[in-house]
């Protein structure tokens, strides 16, 4: 492997890792703040990808589709929390697992009913097509760099929102003691609903920007969900910082695993998780450090 290929694989790893982070951060936020295990989180990613496909062909503009999709995602998440999740907080984790498992089945079938079971491709928009030359004869697609940039921007925005604003402070306080925050006059129900909508929007955004690269296919939600579990477990459940580190780690292990050891690539990330859990049973970053 020469230096150019190595560089390209590194960029691929970072792009894949950041995309995973975008999905996993929503999962870990919803768990860390609201204490809900959301198995249906992968479905939101799938919904995002299909939304990019449908909206891009309807509006004819990828940027417009992204914008419209985000708005729809927030509304979707808000309604979903209201109807299906608001009564789950008091219940055991087991019931949340079951409920969200039921939601996965419903989402998959609705997708099959509305859009069908075909695999679709989404075209890269013209203003992001083309490549950046690397070395003499290789080039790296601009669109993949765009994905990384969007993910980094979202990560930065999330950090600022959670750590530097009053809203973020209230959200963090709500994760520690719901009743206390409520008695201080904060509408915690609304706050949770917004956090949930935000988490859904993160997964939908990830699905939308991933669509041109990964194409759009049935079952893409389950695949990303499981790998996000690995990310969240390695990083420490509830820790956004941990999710970022773990997602990048998985990005590198998976990408280079596919290059060097094709047969075992599928199992490699799970082996990594096993090794890390033997060393640190609660993940790399404990939730209190998030």
């Amino acid at each position, binding site marked *: 492997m020469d230096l150019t290929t190595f560089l390209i694989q590194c960029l691929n790893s970072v792009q894949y890792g950041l995309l995973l982070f975008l999905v996993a951060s929503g999962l870990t936020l919803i768990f860390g703040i609201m204490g809900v*295990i959301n198995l249906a989180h992968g479905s939101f990613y799938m919904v995002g990808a299909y939304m990019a496909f449908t909206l891009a062909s309807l509006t004819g503009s990828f940027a417009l589709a992204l914008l419209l999709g985000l708005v729809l995602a927030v509304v979707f998440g808000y309604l979903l929390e209201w109807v299906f999740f608001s009564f789950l907080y008091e219940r055991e*984790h087991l*019931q949340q697992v079951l*409920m969200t*498992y039921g939601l996965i089945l419903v989402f998959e*079938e609705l997708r*099959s009913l509305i859009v069908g079971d075909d695999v679709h491709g989404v075209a890269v928009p013209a203003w992001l097509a083309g490549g950046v030359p690397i070395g003499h004869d290789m080039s790296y697609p601009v669109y993949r760099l765009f994905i990384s940039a969007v993910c980094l921007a979202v990560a930065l925005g999330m950090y600022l929102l959670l750590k530097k604003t009053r809203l973020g402070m209230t959200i963090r306080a709500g994760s520690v003691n719901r009743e206390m925050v409520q008695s201080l006059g904060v509408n915690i129900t609304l706050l949770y609903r917004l956090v949930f909508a935000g988490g859904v929007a993160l997964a939908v955004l990830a699905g939308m920007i991933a669509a041109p690269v990964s194409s759009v296919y049935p079952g893409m939600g389950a695949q990303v969900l499981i790998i996000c*579990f690995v990310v969240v477990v390695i990083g420490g459940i509830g820790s956004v910082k941990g999710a970022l580190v773990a997602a990048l780690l998985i990005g590198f292990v998976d990408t280079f695993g596919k290059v060097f050891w094709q047969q075992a690539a599928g199992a490699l990330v*799970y082996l990594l998780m096993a090794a890390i859990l033997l060393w640190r049973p609660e*993940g790399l970053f404990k939730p209190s450090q998030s």
Partner: protein
Amino acid sequence: MKTRIAWIAAFALLALLPGLPEPIGTAFHLELGAQVLTMAIFALSLQLLVGCTGLVSLGHAAYFGAAAYVVAMLAPQSEAGNGWWLLAASVGGAALLALLIGLLVMRTRGVYFIMVTLAFAQLVYFVVHDTSGFGGSDGAYIYFRPEFRLGGALLFDLQKPAHFYWFTLASCGLTVSGLGMVLRSRLGHAFAGIRHNEQRMRAAGFPTVAYKLASFVIAGGFAGLAGFLYAVRNGFVNPEILSWHQSGNALLMVILGGLGSLAGAMAGAVSFVLLSEWFQSLTKHWQLLMGGFIIGSVALLPHGLVGGFRALRRTRPAAREIAR
């Protein structure tokens, strides 16, 4: 004692199914019955873990599938294999896998446990899926149903639907009585103690990790029994039986039926299999109905079918466990 008589009566009634007249006792119904009983064994094994020890595993399909693959790999290609040996190998293999994974996952608890068991089941899935020796995504065939001989005589002729049904029923009966025995023993009481308050059990001097591991291995072994029956009945295994949907379905049966009781796991398995058969006969998009049913039952029946049944007739104290 009363519940034991109820169990015996229930199994005796079930054993009569092949003898019933034409519209009921057909090969189709025996096949369906064997399928229901196989899933019931699977659900019972998970009940020990989830309902009785308080360990929520979302990777139970790994042991079910591993046992099925052991049968597919070890069964001879050109003749019927020795059933006793295949059964022992598949159950032992599943228990061994549960021991290996259990040693690793026992370091975690709560939500981590759910996710980590899921991830290990995925690991097993990918190993089977990506290794060509296991047949990859196409799976592998079992050409002859194994023979169970005692001395020289054929004990069960598994080619006949009625014999296979009885064999499955006997396995299910063994599972119920075996798990019932475990639950009544000192071991089972320790499991219940761990479910209620692990810290207190540790303070009382119980090595809780070893107890939890024991529960995990026993559950894995019985899941292996279900996997064995599945593989023999279908004559075919593919990686889908290791997938997390299978684990999710098992968890669903347990919660649907009611946590903590063996009767609950049976009720959950029976209603789940029959419901999914019914939904599949209605529409191609049957998962939509299934999903709606799951959501509805979580919202309306927080204590499962058995809990709902108990709420309907308050003649017995609700705290008493049906299994005891």
